[in-house]
């Protein structure tokens, strides 16, 4: 059994209510921080913990906090990125739905560290029902004095609000999120200036993922150094993994970073193996944007070492033979899956979600979708594989925000590791979806 710090109480009845959450130690980090620590001490603990952004980029959270500009007389904001939209990722939804107070507690403790009097939780619009759950929890927190004026009788006052989005993947990019929070189209901003200097309404702002903010609570409770002992190397602490696809037990799992990938996929404690007795073909380990890996490379690195669930081990070998931990959106595909068609669904997604600001992304994602459609309707030729490669290489690194890379990487990786499958479809002049046995079997049975 790995250690759990975030969702260890997820099966406790009524843990979504303030009373039950308090009975299980909730809001201890707010008490500890506000009564016994200075804001800088809170930030120091987060630095010591080695916590890295859980939204996908993995940037050290304490360092991000330390960049926050603090000019006199200018408001500072904490904004929670709950625009979870990376295909394969549903962990933040689970956390907010089941233990909403874990996020609110983290918002208060983090805001204290940053000196933010107001914070916003930006939740993707499709999660409207989740926003209602969080809003109810916020109302409870206000009524009990955890939010509002002079929290716990201290000088610290804080207001926390929810804002729902309108449906746009791009708003998970922090500057697009800020634009959206200002009531505009979600077009990412050119950086610099970074949000830490000029963010929401031009004020210094920190944007953190839901899971990152929730992780601040155990860090303050146990101390940063203790937290850093969990995990492996620079991948400290625990991580929520959203497991989906052809596995026996899809769902959200909290793992200690460093867990072997093989154990995660095949043990009964986690995914429970591949369903219908099939063999595994490939895995997308960290959300749709990260490179897909074939079975041999996801279980072992190119050097033959067991692959671990950590930033470093999943990244071992670079993009030639490795991938990324990303958001922890873990999509498993069985032996019958068409990589070509799966890539088509990804590319259709990125084309749909491109904001349209930068030409390479706006046009490139559309062309990649069109070319992949040729594979599906049997009109592709062999040189289309090269063409796809060429287009993705001309998107990467040439856009304002990382959606360009996110769209290019899956295409590059699918061709890198499964080129023959593309060539076979092109040569045979027809696409047969071999995986088209009744996928609904698992539920009907």
């Amino acid at each position, binding site marked *: 059994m790995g250690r759990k710090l975030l969702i260890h109480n997820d099966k406790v009845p009524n843990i979504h209510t303030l009373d039950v959450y308090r009975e299980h130690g909730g809001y201890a980090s707010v008490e500890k921080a506000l009564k016994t620590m200075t804001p800088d001490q809170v930030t120091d603990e987060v630095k010591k913990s080695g916590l890295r952004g859980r939204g996908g980029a993995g940037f050290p959270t304490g360092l991000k906090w330390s960049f926050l500009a603090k000019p006199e007389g200018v408001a500072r904001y904490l904004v929670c990125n709950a625009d979870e939209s990376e295909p394969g990722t549903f962990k933040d939804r689970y956390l907010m739905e089941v233990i909403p107070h874990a996020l609110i507690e983290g918002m208060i403790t983090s805001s204290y560290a940053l000196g933010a009097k107001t914070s916003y939780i930006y939740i993707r619009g499709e999660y409207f029902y989740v926003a209602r759950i969080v809003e109810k929890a916020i109302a409870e927190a206000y009524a009990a004095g955890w939010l509002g004026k002079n929290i716990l009788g201290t000088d610290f006052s804080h207001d926390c609000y929810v804002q729902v989005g*309108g449906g746009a993947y791009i708003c998970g990019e922090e500057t697009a999120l800020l634009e959206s929070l200002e009531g505009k189209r979600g077009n990412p901003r050119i950086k610099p200036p970074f949000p830490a200097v000029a963010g929401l309404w031009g004020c210094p702002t920190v944007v953190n993922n839901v899971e990152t903010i929730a992780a601040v609570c155990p860090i303050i409770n146990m101390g940063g150094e203790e937290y850093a002992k969990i995990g492996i190397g620079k991948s400290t602490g625990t991580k929520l993994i959203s497991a989906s696809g052809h596995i026996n037990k899809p769902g959200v799992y909290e793992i200690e970073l460093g867990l072997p990938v093989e154990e995660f996929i095949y043990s009964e404690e986690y995914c429970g193996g591949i369903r219908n007795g099939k063999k595994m073909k490939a895995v997308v380990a960290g959300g749709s944007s990260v490179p897909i890996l074939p079975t041999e490379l996801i279980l072992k690195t190119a050097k033959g070492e067991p692959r671990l669930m950590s930033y470093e081990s999943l990244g071992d070998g670079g993009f030639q033979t490795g991938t990324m931990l990303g958001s922890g959106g873990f999509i498993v595909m069985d032996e019958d899956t068409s990589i070509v068609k799966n890539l088509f669904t990804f590319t259709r997604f990125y084309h749909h979600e491109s904001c349209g600001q930068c030409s390479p992304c706006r046009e490139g994602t559309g062309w990649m979708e069109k070319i992949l459609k040729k594979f599906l309707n049997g009109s592709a030729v062999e040189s289309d594989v090269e063409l796809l490669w060429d287009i993705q290489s001309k998107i990467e690194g040439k856009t304002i925000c990382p959606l360009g890379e996110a769209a290019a990487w899956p295409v590059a990786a699918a061709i890198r590791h499964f080129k023959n499958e593309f060539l076979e479809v092109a040569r045979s002049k027809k696409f047969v979806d071999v995986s088209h046995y009744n996928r609904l079997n698992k539920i009907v049975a």
Partner: protein
Amino acid sequence: MGAQVHGTQPYDNSKRAEIKFNDAAMATVQTLISHYPEGKQKSALLPVLHIAQAEFGGWLSPEVMDYVASILKIKPVEVFEVASFYTMYNLKPVGKCVIEVCQTSSCWLCGAEDIIKHIEKRLNIKVGETSKDGMFTLKTAECLGSCGTAPMAQVGASYHENLTYEKVDTLIEKYRSEGRLRSYTDMDYHNTL
């Protein structure tokens, strides 16, 4: 009238005067505006558009967008540019129940295409169309964050997960018999069958 929203539908000036939030909706709008600093009321635009869509028949007509602009004291085009950017706002009339079936990777891996075909057959419409009785509109959606419970469909605020043909049939009958407009702001949320 001064500047008007140029949406995808013709502007009917005579309708504009009839459009007004009821007291409950207006109170919610005012609360939302109070969440932002003085002068930053435009920030409330996205949530206010959700309320407007639910209150005025499930879609945002040019007149409704114009009305929202007047409440938030912004230009109508500022409303239209936002409403046309995000996928959740309907700029054309839709059925009372919009069924949005997720089709991205994990949902596709678990049979979303079969679910879409089944709904098309059941309602006798194609993706993007509305049933003759005006009850259902079928759409596809990109990842709705329900990958572990795939395949899934969203109807208003409700997530319907681990879908089977039988579940879809039950769902359609349920919505048909209730016959009311389903919106994202529905309180009857997370109605997993």
